[in-house]
């Protein structure tokens, strides 16, 4: 795992902690690289696209081509781990 990805992971976990603080989460354990948005955090479609807004505002500070990560053949992917998002964001950070 690259240092950049691990730094992003910590930023994402901090953001997601804040994002889900009012939710009745069944899994109250600490988030890790393997934590999944839908299965573990109870995300719905609207939460995913709002998270995209939050990532662009708080982490990348620019538009990110999230369609490449979220969609496969016009459908949402079944689920995403926080680690997958961190790895996807690495090029956006190094190029900024």
């Amino acid at each position: 795992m690259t240092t950049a990805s691990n730094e992003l992971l910590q930023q994402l976990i901090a953001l997601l902690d804040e994002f889900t603080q009012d939710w009745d989460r069944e899994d109250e354990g600490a988030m890790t690289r393997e934590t999944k948005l839908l299965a573990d955090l109870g995300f719905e479609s609207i939460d995913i696209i709002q998270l995209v807004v939050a990532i662009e505002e708080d982490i990348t500070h620019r538009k990110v081509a999230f369609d490449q990560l979220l969609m496969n053949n016009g459908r949402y992917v079944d689920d995403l781990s926080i680690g997958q998002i961190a790895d996807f964001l690495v090029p956006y950070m190094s190029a900024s």
Partner: protein
Amino acid sequence: MSVKLASQQFGSGPDVVMIHGLGANRAFWYPRLASALAQTCRVTIYDLRGHGYSDTPPSGYSTTVMAQDLLELMDERGIAQAALVGHSYGGAVALEAVAAQAARFTHLCLMDTRIQRLQPQLRLHDIDALTAFERAVAAQDGGDWQNDPEIGFRFLEAAARCVVDGIDLEVRDAFTPFGEGRGAKRAARAWLRLLDETSARREFVTPGATTDALRGLNLPCLLMYAEHSRALRSGEQLTALLPNTQWRRVAGGGHFFPVSHVAETLTELQAFLR
């Protein structure tokens, strides 16, 4: 603006603003319709007040007030002129915005929209049959659905109560209000809070622009209605009132056809906006 609305923009080109219906949110349009239109347009999607990640003020849920929200959002986002696409109540909001400031809109597409002024009641018998999911919700609700003059609201509220109470109805339509996952409970609770703790329930049925005002709107309008639509009377009356309309029925479609019949919806929209 007075109420904070959650919104997103994609793509570049002529502006298109898409407005979801009640109990839904901007994810109704994303990814398939909004992303596809964003290949040639700048698409803005947003959550109506009281929905999704927008504010939930104690009042202001009529189509007239929500149309003002839309106009303010356009100002905030720097949208001088746009095409509007609205599903269900979102279409009624779109029509009000056009009635308020016609010069700011190039096209209007209404999808299975009931217009309170033209169709004051929405009855169970406005179409022949309930879907499997509607039948299951009605059975669970146990109320007098035959005589309810606002069956659409009754259905949404009863469906939300099933979700909140954890009742699995074991049948599904092509689109299930409030979603399927664990987050569905949050969405259903939010809908019930909106009904119970704000003046939305009363304001949703407030009529908007007069028929005289509607008659004067001459922008191109695409009226798409489901084959199995309870709002058909609204569409037929709009066709008679508005001078520049195209009329489409979505074969085999129900109220949520923009999700269940996405390819057909997209083809019609792209042709209309071209």
